[in-house]
Protein backbone atom coordinates (compact mmCIF):
# COMPACT_ATOMS: atom_id res chain seq x y z
CA UNK A 1 0.00 0.00 0.00
CA UNK A 2 3.08 2.30 -0.10
CA UNK A 3 2.06 3.66 -3.48
CA UNK A 4 -1.26 4.91 -2.05
CA UNK A 5 0.66 7.39 0.08
CA UNK A 6 1.64 9.32 -3.03
CA UNK A 7 0.20 12.87 -2.94
CA UNK A 8 -1.02 12.82 -6.51
CA UNK A 9 -2.78 9.50 -6.07
CA UNK A 10 -4.50 10.73 -2.88
CA UNK A 11 -5.57 13.91 -4.69
CA UNK A 12 -6.97 11.97 -7.65
CA UNK A 13 -8.75 9.66 -5.22
CA UNK A 14 -10.38 12.65 -3.47
CA UNK A 15 -11.58 14.10 -6.78
CA UNK A 16 -12.79 10.69 -7.90
CA UNK A 17 -14.78 9.93 -4.76
CA UNK A 18 -16.38 13.39 -4.74
CA UNK A 19 -17.33 13.07 -8.40
CA UNK A 20 -18.79 9.62 -7.81
CA UNK A 21 -20.70 10.83 -4.73
CA UNK A 22 -22.15 13.77 -6.67
CA UNK A 23 -23.26 11.54 -9.54
CA UNK A 24 -24.79 9.14 -7.04
CA UNK A 25 -26.75 11.95 -5.37
CA UNK A 26 -28.02 13.17 -8.77
CA UNK A 27 -29.05 9.63 -9.64
CA UNK A 28 -30.92 8.96 -6.40
CA UNK A 29 -32.09 12.56 -5.80
CA UNK A 30 -31.66 12.06 -2.05
CA UNK A 31 -30.58 15.27 -0.32
CA UNK A 32 -29.31 13.25 2.65
CA UNK A 33 -26.55 11.79 0.40
CA UNK A 34 -24.68 15.09 0.51
CA UNK A 35 -21.52 14.55 -1.59
CA UNK A 36 -19.32 16.36 0.95
CA UNK A 37 -20.50 14.11 3.77
CA UNK A 38 -20.30 10.95 1.65
CA UNK A 39 -16.77 11.78 0.47
CA UNK A 40 -15.59 12.43 4.03
CA UNK A 41 -17.03 9.14 5.28
CA UNK A 42 -15.68 7.08 2.34
CA UNK A 43 -12.21 8.66 2.66
CA UNK A 44 -12.03 8.03 6.41
CA UNK A 45 -13.06 4.41 5.87
CA UNK A 46 -10.51 3.98 3.10
CA UNK A 47 -7.67 5.54 5.11
CA UNK A 48 -8.42 3.39 8.13
CA UNK A 49 -8.66 0.29 5.97
CA UNK A 50 -5.29 0.94 4.32
CA UNK A 51 -3.64 2.19 7.51
CA UNK A 52 -2.72 5.60 6.08
CA UNK A 53 -2.66 8.20 8.88
CA UNK A 54 -4.25 11.63 8.67
CA UNK A 55 -0.91 13.49 8.52
CA UNK A 56 -0.03 11.63 5.32
CA UNK A 57 -3.41 12.37 3.77
CA UNK A 58 -3.21 16.02 4.81
CA UNK A 59 -0.07 16.50 2.70
CA UNK A 60 -2.32 15.98 -0.31
CA UNK A 61 -5.47 17.44 1.24
CA UNK A 62 -3.68 20.68 2.07
CA UNK A 63 -3.65 21.55 -1.63
CA UNK A 64 -7.46 21.41 -1.66
CA UNK A 65 -8.03 23.04 1.74
CA UNK A 66 -5.82 25.94 0.65
CA UNK A 67 -8.64 27.22 -1.60
CA UNK A 68 -11.07 27.75 1.31
CA UNK A 69 -9.78 31.21 2.19
CA UNK A 70 -9.88 32.57 -1.39
CA UNK A 71 -13.39 31.09 -1.68
CA UNK A 72 -14.58 33.16 1.30
CA UNK A 73 -13.08 36.29 -0.24
CA UNK A 74 -14.99 35.44 -3.43
CA UNK A 75 -18.28 35.64 -1.48
CA UNK A 76 -17.71 39.40 -1.63
CA UNK A 77 -19.06 39.26 -5.21
CA UNK A 78 -22.60 38.02 -4.40
CA UNK A 79 -22.58 40.29 -1.34
CA UNK A 80 -21.86 43.26 -3.62
CA UNK A 81 -24.56 42.11 -6.06
CA UNK A 82 -27.11 42.00 -3.22
CA UNK A 83 -26.14 45.35 -1.67
CA UNK A 84 -29.02 47.27 -3.24
CA UNK A 85 -31.55 44.75 -1.96
CA UNK A 86 -30.00 44.71 1.50
CA UNK A 87 -30.19 48.49 1.69
CA UNK A 88 -33.84 48.56 0.58
CA UNK A 89 -34.84 46.10 3.29
CA UNK A 90 -32.09 46.95 5.70
CA UNK A 91 -33.99 46.89 8.99
CA UNK A 92 -35.92 43.59 8.68
CA UNK A 93 -32.92 41.79 7.22
CA UNK A 94 -30.43 43.17 9.72
CA UNK A 95 -32.64 42.56 12.78
CA UNK A 96 -33.53 39.01 11.76
CA UNK A 97 -29.86 38.21 11.05
CA UNK A 98 -28.80 39.65 14.38
CA UNK A 99 -31.52 37.70 16.22
CA UNK A 100 -30.66 34.47 14.36
CA UNK A 101 -26.94 34.88 14.95
CA UNK A 102 -27.33 35.58 18.68
CA UNK A 103 -29.84 32.80 19.36
CA UNK A 104 -27.74 30.35 17.30
CA UNK A 105 -24.56 30.91 19.29
CA UNK A 106 -26.07 31.43 22.74
CA UNK A 107 -28.49 28.47 22.60
CA UNK A 108 -25.93 25.95 21.35
CA UNK A 109 -23.41 27.04 23.99
CA UNK A 110 -25.95 26.95 26.84
CA UNK A 111 -27.37 23.54 25.90
CA UNK A 112 -23.93 21.97 25.37
CA UNK A 113 -22.69 23.45 28.64
CA UNK A 114 -25.78 22.23 30.49
CA UNK A 115 -25.30 18.72 29.08
CA UNK A 116 -21.69 18.64 30.21
CA UNK A 117 -19.72 19.11 26.99
CA UNK A 118 -16.04 20.02 27.28
CA UNK A 119 -14.80 23.57 26.64
CA UNK A 120 -13.18 22.57 23.33
CA UNK A 121 -16.41 21.00 22.12
CA UNK A 122 -18.47 24.04 23.15
CA UNK A 123 -16.15 26.36 21.20
CA UNK A 124 -16.26 24.02 18.21
CA UNK A 125 -20.08 24.02 18.31
CA UNK A 126 -20.48 27.80 18.61
CA UNK A 127 -20.18 28.74 14.89
CA UNK A 128 -22.25 25.74 13.72
CA UNK A 129 -24.80 27.68 11.65
CA UNK A 130 -22.41 29.37 9.25
CA UNK A 131 -20.65 28.11 6.15
CA UNK A 132 -17.74 25.78 6.89
CA UNK A 133 -14.75 27.94 5.87
CA UNK A 134 -15.97 30.79 8.08
CA UNK A 135 -16.98 28.46 10.92
CA UNK A 136 -13.58 26.74 10.87
CA UNK A 137 -11.73 30.03 10.95
CA UNK A 138 -13.85 31.29 13.84
CA UNK A 139 -13.32 28.00 15.68
CA UNK A 140 -9.56 28.09 15.10
CA UNK A 141 -9.27 31.70 16.24
CA UNK A 142 -11.10 30.84 19.48
CA UNK A 143 -9.13 27.67 20.21
CA UNK A 144 -11.62 24.94 19.27
CA UNK A 145 -11.19 21.92 17.00
CA UNK A 146 -11.76 23.11 13.40
CA UNK A 147 -12.39 19.67 11.92
CA UNK A 148 -14.98 18.90 14.57
CA UNK A 149 -16.65 22.17 13.56
CA UNK A 150 -16.47 21.13 9.89
CA UNK A 151 -18.28 17.87 10.59
CA UNK A 152 -20.94 19.56 12.75
CA UNK A 153 -21.49 22.31 10.18
CA UNK A 154 -22.09 19.80 7.39
CA UNK A 155 -24.55 17.92 9.63
CA UNK A 156 -26.39 21.16 10.51
CA UNK A 157 -26.61 21.97 6.80
CA UNK A 158 -28.09 18.56 6.05
CA UNK A 159 -30.61 18.93 8.88
CA UNK A 160 -31.70 22.35 7.60
CA UNK A 161 -31.95 21.15 4.01
CA UNK A 162 -34.04 18.12 4.87
CA UNK A 163 -36.28 19.49 7.68
CA UNK A 164 -35.90 23.30 7.42
CA UNK A 165 -38.95 24.12 5.31
CA UNK A 166 -41.13 21.76 7.37
CA UNK A 167 -40.07 23.46 10.62
CA UNK A 168 -40.84 26.89 9.11
CA UNK A 169 -44.30 25.86 7.94
CA UNK A 170 -45.22 24.33 11.29
CA UNK A 171 -44.30 27.65 12.95
CA UNK A 172 -46.32 29.71 10.44
CA UNK A 173 -43.38 31.30 8.65
CA UNK A 174 -44.85 31.25 5.16
CA UNK A 175 -43.46 34.31 3.40
CA UNK A 176 -40.89 33.17 0.77
CA UNK A 177 -38.38 35.93 1.68
CA UNK A 178 -38.46 35.03 5.38
CA UNK A 179 -38.27 31.31 4.58
CA UNK A 180 -35.25 31.69 2.29
CA UNK A 181 -33.48 33.99 4.73
CA UNK A 182 -34.03 31.60 7.66
CA UNK A 183 -32.79 28.57 5.72
CA UNK A 184 -29.59 30.38 4.70
CA UNK A 185 -29.04 31.76 8.20
CA UNK A 186 -29.53 28.41 9.95
CA UNK A 187 -28.04 25.98 7.47
CA UNK A 188 -25.63 27.91 5.18
CA UNK A 189 -24.61 26.49 1.77
CA UNK A 190 -26.29 23.09 2.03
CA UNK A 191 -29.60 24.71 3.01
CA UNK A 192 -29.11 27.34 0.31
CA UNK A 193 -28.75 24.68 -2.37
CA UNK A 194 -32.08 23.21 -1.21
CA UNK A 195 -33.66 26.71 -1.30
CA UNK A 196 -32.36 27.21 -4.86
CA UNK A 197 -34.31 24.09 -5.87
CA UNK A 198 -37.50 25.63 -4.47
CA UNK A 199 -37.09 28.80 -6.50
CA UNK A 200 -34.81 31.73 -7.34
CA UNK A 201 -36.35 34.06 -4.71
CA UNK A 202 -35.85 31.51 -1.95
CA UNK A 203 -32.28 30.95 -3.20
CA UNK A 204 -31.35 34.64 -3.35
CA UNK A 205 -32.56 35.27 0.20
CA UNK A 206 -30.92 32.08 1.44
CA UNK A 207 -27.54 33.19 0.08
CA UNK A 208 -28.09 36.55 1.74
CA UNK A 209 -28.65 34.78 5.07
CA UNK A 210 -25.61 32.57 4.47
CA UNK A 211 -23.31 35.55 3.88
CA UNK A 212 -24.69 37.91 6.54
CA UNK A 213 -24.81 35.35 9.33
CA UNK A 214 -21.28 34.31 8.33
CA UNK A 215 -20.04 37.86 8.75
CA UNK A 216 -22.03 38.51 11.95
CA UNK A 217 -20.88 35.25 13.52
CA UNK A 218 -17.25 35.98 12.65
CA UNK A 219 -17.60 39.40 14.26
CA UNK A 220 -19.76 38.50 17.26
CA UNK A 221 -18.83 34.92 18.26
CA UNK A 222 -15.56 35.95 20.00
CA UNK A 223 -17.40 38.66 21.96
CA UNK A 224 -20.37 36.47 22.90
CA UNK A 225 -18.15 33.61 24.09
CA UNK A 226 -16.05 36.02 26.14
CA UNK A 227 -19.19 37.52 27.64
CA UNK A 228 -20.53 34.04 28.47
CA UNK A 229 -17.25 33.22 30.19
CA UNK A 230 -16.22 30.37 27.84
Amino acid at each position, binding site marked *: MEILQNNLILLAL*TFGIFYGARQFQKWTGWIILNP*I*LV*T*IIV*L*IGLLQLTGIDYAT*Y*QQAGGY*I*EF*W*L*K*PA*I*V*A*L*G*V*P*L*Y*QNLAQIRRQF*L*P*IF*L*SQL*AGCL*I*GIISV*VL*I*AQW*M*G*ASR*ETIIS*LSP*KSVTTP*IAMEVCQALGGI*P*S*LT*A*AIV*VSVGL*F*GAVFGFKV*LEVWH*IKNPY*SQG*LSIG*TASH*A*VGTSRAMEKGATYGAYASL*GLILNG*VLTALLAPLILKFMGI
Partner: protein
Amino acid sequence: MIRQCLIIFGCLALGEVIVWLTGITIPSSIIGMLLLTLLLHLKAVKLEWVQGMSGFLISNMGFFFVPPGVALMLYLDLIQAELMPIVVATVVSTVLVLIVTGWTHQIFKHHGNSAE
Protein backbone atom coordinates in the same frame (compact mmCIF):
# COMPACT_ATOMS: atom_id res chain seq x y z
CA MET B 1 -6.42 35.09 -14.85
CA ILE B 2 -3.45 36.81 -13.23
CA ARG B 3 -5.56 39.89 -12.54
CA GLN B 4 -8.31 37.75 -10.98
CA CYS B 5 -5.77 36.04 -8.73
CA LEU B 6 -4.16 39.36 -7.85
CA ILE B 7 -7.49 40.84 -6.72
CA ILE B 8 -8.60 37.84 -4.67
CA PHE B 9 -5.21 37.08 -3.10
CA GLY B 10 -4.53 40.81 -2.73
CA CYS B 11 -7.70 41.19 -0.60
CA LEU B 12 -6.69 38.11 1.39
CA ALA B 13 -3.16 39.45 1.95
CA LEU B 14 -4.53 42.83 3.05
CA GLY B 15 -6.80 40.96 5.46
CA GLU B 16 -3.75 39.17 6.90
CA VAL B 17 -1.94 42.50 7.31
CA ILE B 18 -4.94 44.03 9.08
CA VAL B 19 -5.20 41.04 11.45
CA TRP B 20 -1.45 41.22 12.12
CA LEU B 21 -1.54 44.99 12.77
CA THR B 22 -4.64 45.04 14.99
CA GLY B 23 -4.56 41.57 16.55
CA ILE B 24 -8.35 41.13 16.14
CA THR B 25 -9.88 37.64 16.13
CA ILE B 26 -11.80 38.08 12.88
CA PRO B 27 -10.57 35.70 10.16
CA SER B 28 -8.43 37.42 7.50
CA SER B 29 -10.65 35.87 4.84
CA ILE B 30 -13.74 37.68 6.19
CA ILE B 31 -11.86 40.99 6.12
CA GLY B 32 -10.75 40.12 2.58
CA MET B 33 -14.35 39.46 1.58
CA LEU B 34 -15.53 42.81 2.98
CA LEU B 35 -12.58 44.54 1.24
CA LEU B 36 -13.58 42.96 -2.08
CA THR B 37 -17.18 44.12 -1.59
CA LEU B 38 -15.94 47.63 -0.81
CA LEU B 39 -13.62 47.70 -3.87
CA LEU B 40 -16.48 46.56 -6.12
CA HIS B 41 -18.81 49.14 -4.59
CA LEU B 42 -16.27 51.95 -5.08
CA LYS B 43 -15.80 50.74 -8.69
CA ALA B 44 -12.06 50.34 -8.00
CA VAL B 45 -12.53 46.75 -9.16
CA LYS B 46 -14.85 45.94 -12.06
CA LEU B 47 -17.24 43.03 -11.59
CA GLU B 48 -16.04 41.29 -14.78
CA TRP B 49 -12.46 41.35 -13.45
CA VAL B 50 -13.31 38.84 -10.71
CA GLN B 51 -16.48 37.15 -11.88
CA GLY B 52 -14.83 34.10 -13.49
CA MET B 53 -12.63 33.13 -10.59
CA SER B 54 -15.15 33.98 -7.88
CA GLY B 55 -17.80 31.90 -9.66
CA PHE B 56 -15.39 28.96 -9.81
CA LEU B 57 -14.43 29.28 -6.13
CA ILE B 58 -18.01 29.68 -4.86
CA SER B 59 -19.49 26.84 -6.88
CA ASN B 60 -16.78 24.44 -5.69
CA MET B 61 -16.68 25.66 -2.10
CA GLY B 62 -18.15 22.41 -0.80
CA PHE B 63 -15.32 20.34 -2.24
CA PHE B 64 -12.66 22.45 -0.53
CA PHE B 65 -13.84 21.38 2.90
CA VAL B 66 -13.46 17.66 2.32
CA PRO B 67 -9.87 17.46 3.70
CA PRO B 68 -10.64 19.36 6.96
CA GLY B 69 -13.67 17.09 7.33
CA VAL B 70 -11.46 14.02 6.97
CA ALA B 71 -9.51 15.27 10.01
CA LEU B 72 -12.57 14.11 11.91
CA MET B 73 -10.94 10.66 12.03
CA LEU B 74 -8.64 12.10 14.69
CA TYR B 75 -11.59 12.97 16.96
CA LEU B 76 -13.85 9.95 16.66
CA ASP B 77 -13.30 9.15 20.37
CA LEU B 78 -14.20 12.67 21.48
CA ILE B 79 -17.39 12.68 19.41
CA GLN B 80 -18.41 9.30 20.77
CA ALA B 81 -17.83 10.50 24.34
CA GLU B 82 -19.88 13.69 23.88
CA LEU B 83 -22.38 12.50 21.30
CA MET B 84 -25.53 13.50 23.22
CA PRO B 85 -24.58 17.10 24.04
CA ILE B 86 -23.37 17.59 20.47
CA VAL B 87 -26.50 16.20 18.81
CA VAL B 88 -29.09 17.76 21.17
CA ALA B 89 -27.43 21.19 21.26
CA THR B 90 -27.05 21.25 17.48
CA VAL B 91 -30.59 20.17 16.58
CA VAL B 92 -32.41 22.35 19.15
CA SER B 93 -30.29 25.39 18.35
CA THR B 94 -30.79 24.98 14.58
CA VAL B 95 -34.58 24.81 14.98
CA LEU B 96 -34.43 27.94 17.19
CA VAL B 97 -32.39 29.83 14.56
CA LEU B 98 -34.91 28.92 11.84
CA ILE B 99 -37.89 30.09 13.90
CA VAL B 100 -36.36 33.23 15.40
CA THR B 101 -34.89 34.45 12.10
CA GLY B 102 -38.12 33.78 10.22
CA TRP B 103 -40.36 35.42 12.80
CA THR B 104 -38.18 38.48 13.20
CA HIS B 105 -38.01 39.01 9.46
CA GLN B 106 -41.74 38.44 8.99
CA ILE B 107 -42.71 40.85 11.78
CA PHE B 108 -40.39 43.70 10.77
CA LYS B 109 -41.03 43.28 7.05
CA HIS B 110 -44.72 43.74 7.80
CA HIS B 111 -44.01 46.84 9.91
CA GLY B 112 -41.78 48.28 7.18
CA ASN B 113 -44.49 47.82 4.56
CA SER B 114 -47.24 49.43 6.62
CA ALA B 115 -44.97 52.39 7.38
CA GLU B 116 -44.41 53.10 3.69
